[in-house]
């Protein structure tokens, strides 16, 4: 009897000790586990990031090399005579700032228009049950499938001799030539036929289908109209997806060579001057122009492509801040 009574606190104490030990061990395991996963994650991400970055890093280091360094076989990665020469040449000979502003205007316009239009169409396809919805959706998927190269010539003709059902020629007597203006891109964006717009519509449709309907229905019950609901509730909810689409269309318009060479042959754009290259460029003190394939020619092209990529990356660094839970701010919880 007394032995048991005396033994009880000891047993309890032992149990507590054991508990503490276990907890310590468990916590240690927990932390080791977390540390292990964190390290694994960083290793994986850094490794993959290296795969992506390696070509760009080589270009970056090359872009600071002088002409001698490029030919010198002993110089690798770290330039011996670092120079701004390549950047200066690119800036001077491509009227870089002019084409930068042109490209920015066109990309921003088509990005914004395509973002709005594709969100609208995607919403229409996701939330309304009108007759013929199936057909419209099929057409959207078809337009993703058909690459623009296959109807390039017809498209060119359409915009060279622009006319809507003969209306234009009836009014002004003759079709209008829309090339080398913003109009072809604006029209294509407004009707949702820009570069990969079918994809954006599909993304938005799927995205809206995955979002609960309750918020909109509450708005309707409260007497909010269709377009008011769209502007006040749908757009804020889908902000992160819309930003993503804007980034897509901005970046792809920025680096696009297909539509640019077709519509804007006279306009200075970044992509067209990159593709023109630096062959035949006369540098100061040289009697011959740059030959194609020369290290210096290639390096100038690479420097230019770095200069084209950089603004996009900066844009994305800003935009990715908005890739946060959109739905959380809108008030649906759970």
């Amino acid at each position, binding site marked *: 009897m007394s032995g048991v009574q005396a033994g009880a606190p000891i047993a309890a104490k032992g149990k507590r000790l054991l508990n503490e030990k276990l907890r310590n061990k468990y916590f240690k395991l927990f932390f080791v586990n977390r540390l292990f996963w964190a390290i694994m994650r960083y290793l994986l*991400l850094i490794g*993959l*990031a290296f795969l992506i970055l390696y070509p760009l890093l*080589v270009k970056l*280091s*090359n872009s600071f090399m002088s002409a001698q360094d*490029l*030919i010198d*076989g002993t110089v690798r990665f770290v330039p011996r005579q670092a120079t701004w020469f390549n950047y200066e040449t690119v800036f001077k000979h491509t009227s870089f700032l002019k084409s930068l502003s042109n490209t920015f205007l066109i990309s921003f316009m088509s990005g914004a228009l395509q973002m709005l239009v594709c969100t609208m*169409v995607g919403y*229409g*396809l996701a*939330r*309304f*049950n*009108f007759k013929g*919805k199936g057909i*419209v959706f099929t*057409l959207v*998927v*078809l*337009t*993703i499938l058909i690459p623009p190269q*296959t109807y390039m010539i*017809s498209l060119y003709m*359409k915009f060279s001799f622009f006319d809507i059902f003969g209306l234009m020629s009836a009014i002004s007597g003759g079709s209008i030539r829309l090339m080398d203006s913003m109009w072809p891109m604006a*029209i*294509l964006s*407004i009707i949702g036929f820009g570069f990969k717009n079918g994809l954006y519509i*599909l*993304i938005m449709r799927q995205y809206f*289908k*995955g979002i*609960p309907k309750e918020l909109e229905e509450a708005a309707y019950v409260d007497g909010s109209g*269709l377009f008011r609901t769209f502007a006040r509730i749908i757009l804020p909810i889908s902000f*992160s*997806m819309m930003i993503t689409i804007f980034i*897509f269309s901005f*970046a*792809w318009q920025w*680096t*696009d*060579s297909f539509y640019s060479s077709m519509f804007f042959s006279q306009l200075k754009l970044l992509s067209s001057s990159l*593709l023109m*290259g630096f062959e035949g460029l006369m540098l100061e003190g040289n009697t011959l122009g740059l030959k*194609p*394939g020369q*290290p210096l020619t*290639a390096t100038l092209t*690479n420097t230019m*492509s770095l200069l084209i*990529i950089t603004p*996009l*990356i900066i844009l*994305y660094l800003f935009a*990715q*801040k908005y890739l946060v839970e*959109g*739905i959380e701010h809108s008030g649906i919880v*759970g």
Partner: protein
Amino acid sequence: MSKWSAALSMKKRMNLTATKKRDLMGWIFVSPFVLGFILLFLGIFIDSFRFSFMEVNVLSQGGYSEKFIGMDNFHHILRIDPYFNRQLYDAVQNMIFDIPIIVMYSLFIAVLLNQKMKGRAIFRAIFFIPVILATGIIDKADMRNSIMNAYQSIPGLDTGIAAVNESAGGMFSNLQLKKYMYQMFDFSPALVNITVGAAENIYNVVNHSGVQILIFLAGLQAISSSIYESAKIEGCSGWESFWKITFPLISPLILVNIIYSIVDSFTGGKNQIMDRITSTMKLGQYGTASAMAWIYFLVAALFIIVIGLIASRFVFYQNKE
């Protein structure tokens, strides 16, 4: 009693018409696309379809002449042309191998990039770079340089430019790696081929999944963190909450990414068939090119329909229709 039920039925009917009315408003939302399709693209598609049954000759003074030749274009491509079938088969095979890997990889990376950690913005930006490169303009510029290099064999190219070419083509020099593995480990050739193929593929997969990662990343934002919190309180492990919460809720976008990956692998710049179609078009053989495009288009559409139907059975939408 009857008054009540009449009022009720009346109310019901009015409700019905109200939702129907709202559904009709859907046309307003999709009208830009539909209008554009009718005004601009219907004609183009019909033209292309007509051309595939015709022999089209571009006249030197401008314009073109067309002659109806029935199925001859198709017959020529499928039966006489020695390459087309082979290339089509290769394109389909590549697609079937690549797509599961690309979709799984991009979902995995998107989930990783969605977690809170130091340097997340930087990592996100790095994984965004393949999106920029997807239009292929940088590739084009690179490619022309490397072709010129090979063509002119200018000395001194083993400095930076060779490294650029090497890295543009793939991280690993394929042949060197193979030779190394044969000599060092005495592997069987089949094993070496598989290993080297996988290593080559990593580079491809990483550079072809930028778009998919971005789509997933945006989709993950729509999943409220409170769901995860409550699951955690209930004792759900990370693995379980991925499969029970993240996976079903992201599944609509998995379907998008599957479709996009199919289209990308079919119409991407590295695809031989697309090259052939555009080069045939540049030669002025619009009839043949249109027929090729239509065959190709039908095959791609068939795959999208089949895979889409299979995948859409597993897609979970929060709204039941």
